[in-house]
């Protein structure tokens, strides 16, 4: 049943400070036309440009240890973590609760990174490079986890937390079930947290979260249907809570062509129609679906000026910026053609 969300006296003021702040922060993001120019620069030129922006401190700090694409990647990760932690520091009350719930995705990212690292026997220094301490788990705790010797020891460290039940699904051979359980836990918590807020903008945020779940499920279906995996296994991997949950669940196990035909008419169809019919690689379809989601977040971010939505818009914009920069430098490092890199870059 839809929940009526009316503005309550004093409610918009809770969001006035943080929305003012994120709007000012948004002006410091890399302008969209700059990505086009970055495509014609080499990695050293991109690094020099980034030194003139908000990434200066991180690049200066890391330049003694890293260079090239590695330097840009680690510096942007560090800046992302600093920015998101900064948001948590300057919010209180309901905005803080919602921002923290959203940023828990980085906790899930970090746990997955550490588990994968330990699973493949990577060193703690190597694992630490890819951590983004932007959620609830701080750097000190993550450092402690990275220093542990085995996957089991990492899992044991979460005893008593929500993550423990998901992590105990580890069977000693495959991490995919644990990773899937962590994703499901994240979206369950996020949907519960957003569904519980009665503030203006909460309804649209809930809609965004459900859309994100749907997009994640569609990507899973694309990958697994193309690989011809059994319907029951695919259904186990789908995340509950999306708006199209039942529809997508029925599509599990279909042949690729039948699945693609079934997607016609859904809101995201226009974003992928030209690439799916050509039978392109899943990565291109995935990039288009992610871009669709980012554009949706940008579109709703202006609906209610004094609500959580502008904050969501900024978080998504920052995430997209870091992801775009990483795609460009990693693409340049791999000598990919500019057109191919451009396709992966998300702009409004």
């Amino acid at each position, binding site marked *: 049943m839809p929940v009526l969300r009316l503005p309550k006296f004093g409610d*918009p*003021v809770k969001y*006035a*400070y*943080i*929305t*003012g*702040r994120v*709007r*000012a*922060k948004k*002006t*410091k993001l890399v302008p969209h036309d700059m990505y086009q120019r970055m495509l014609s620069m080499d990695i050293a030129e991109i690094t020099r440009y980034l030194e003139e922006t908000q990434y200066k401190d991180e690049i200066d700090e890391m330049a003694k240890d890293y260079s090239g694409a590695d330097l840009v990647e680690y510096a942007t990760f560090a800046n992302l973590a600093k920015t998101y932690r900064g948001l948590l520091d*300057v919010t209180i009350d309901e905005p803080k609760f919602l921002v923290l719930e959203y940023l828990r995705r980085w906790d899930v990212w970090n746990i997955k990174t550490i588990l994968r690292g330990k699973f493949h026997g990577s060193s703690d220094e190597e694992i630490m490079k890819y951590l983004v301490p932007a959620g609830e788990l701080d750097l000190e705790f993550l450092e402690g986890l990275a220093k542990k010797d085995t996957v089991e020891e990492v899992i044991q460290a979460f005893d008593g937390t929500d993550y423990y039940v998901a992590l105990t699904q580890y069977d000693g051979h495959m991490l995919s079930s644990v990773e899937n359980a962590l994703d499901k836990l994240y979206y369950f918590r996020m949907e519960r947290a957003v569904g519980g807020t009665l503030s203006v903008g909460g309804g649209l945020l809930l809609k965004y979260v459900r859309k994100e779940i749907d997009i994640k499920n569609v990507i899973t279906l694309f990958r697994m249907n193309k690989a011809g995996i059994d319907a029951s296994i695919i259904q186990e991997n789908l995340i509950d809570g999306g708006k199209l949950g039942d529809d997508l669940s029925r599509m599990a196990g279909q042949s690729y062509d039948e699945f693609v035909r079934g997607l016609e008419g859904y809101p995201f169809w226009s974003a992928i129609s030209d690439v799916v019919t050509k039978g392109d690689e899943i990565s291109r379809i995935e990039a288009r679906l992610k871009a669709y989601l980012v554009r949706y977040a940008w579109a709703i971010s202006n609906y209610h000026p*004094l609500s959580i939505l502008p904050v969501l818009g900024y978080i998504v914009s920052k995430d997209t910026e870091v992801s775009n920069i990483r795609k460009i430098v990693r693409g340049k490092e791999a000598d990919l053609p500019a057109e191919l890199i451009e396709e992966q870059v998300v702009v409004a």
Partner: protein
Amino acid sequence: MVVDIIVDGGMLYGLIAVGAGLATGLAGIGAGVGEQGIGAAVVGVVAEEPGFLGKGLFLMLLPETLIIFGLAVSLILMFAWTPFV
């Protein structure tokens, strides 16, 4: 008879004073309600962009103009408006 009591009994000036007080007071409360949001947003922006302080203060002072209207009404009531005289 009621009018006589109000005018002759000096109650009129009491009511005018109450009206003048309400005009300024309510305008002040209204401006305060408006300013709480603007003030919070301006402080947020200035924390990121110190150069915005001047513009921010100007925006913050906009609701203050409401108090001037209230004050003007109060002054008219107290000193310029003399009914039944």
